[in-house]
């Protein structure tokens, strides 16, 4: 029994879906951000496995970029979380209703 590319991709899809579930259902802003990180992580996994199975290092390089972006994103996102908490005294995402039509 050999581990193939498909196994990794399926794992990546599963992790991605779980992350999506978190983003869509959780109302705690911090947990939503964490779920986003999970999604990013699953994508990274897909990149790495493609790099390995195609024998191309570009996937790994791309992952480094993705990690950088993720770090920046988390930094900015958490700054916003702090702001929002100071403003609303709550981390409930449903309070942010500025998009209401």
């Amino acid at each position: 029994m050999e581990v193939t590319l498909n196994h990794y991709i399926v794992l990546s899809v599963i992790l991605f879906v779980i992350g999506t579930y978190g983003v869509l259902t959780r109302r705690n802003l911090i947990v939503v951000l964490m779920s986003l990180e999970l999604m990013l992580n699953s994508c990274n996994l897909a990149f790495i496995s493609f790099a390995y199975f195609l024998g191309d290092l570009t996937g790994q390089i791309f992952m480094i970029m993705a990690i950088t972006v993720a770090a920046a994103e988390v930094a900015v996102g958490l700054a916003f979380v702090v702001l929002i908490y100071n403003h609303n005294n709550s981390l409930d995402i449903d309070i942010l209703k500025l998009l209401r039509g």
Partner: protein
Amino acid sequence: MAEALVFYIFAALCIFGSIIVVTHKNPVASAISMVLTFFFTAVLFILLRAQFIAVIQVLVYAGAIIVLFLFTVMFLNIKEDAMQFDGRNIAKKVTFLFVIIAVAGFFGSKLIVNSGQKAPEIENFGSVESVGRELFTEFLLPFELTSVLIIVAIIGVVTIAKRSKSS
């Protein structure tokens, strides 16, 4: 064979960890569980001959990002009742989870049917040397640009934080 065993164990751990991340009521527990998930993923990276990336994963994610998360949670000092809003609509959420997993299973089954591809054997694949060579030759410009991105992020965060202080 041993490789497959390792993969399955850590894949299962990854999935388990992520589920805890998205379902646990306590954000701190979520964060801790996330660290573990990232560790397990790093193990999978090593299986994929991406040792350098695995190290970076542990350093950046587990080291920096998670600390940032935990720090924020602690800093905001969120009380238990401020989290009450997340306890509602459990039935709906569970239904949703099943739907999502069903969709994912559909795609997964589609993929499983196709036979896998064997990895080519390349000398030094994924070592620090080869990744570094690639990074500083072909991808020099994007690499430098990421530093610009980080600077921008730093400045942005500082600005936002400052404004919060004044208000």
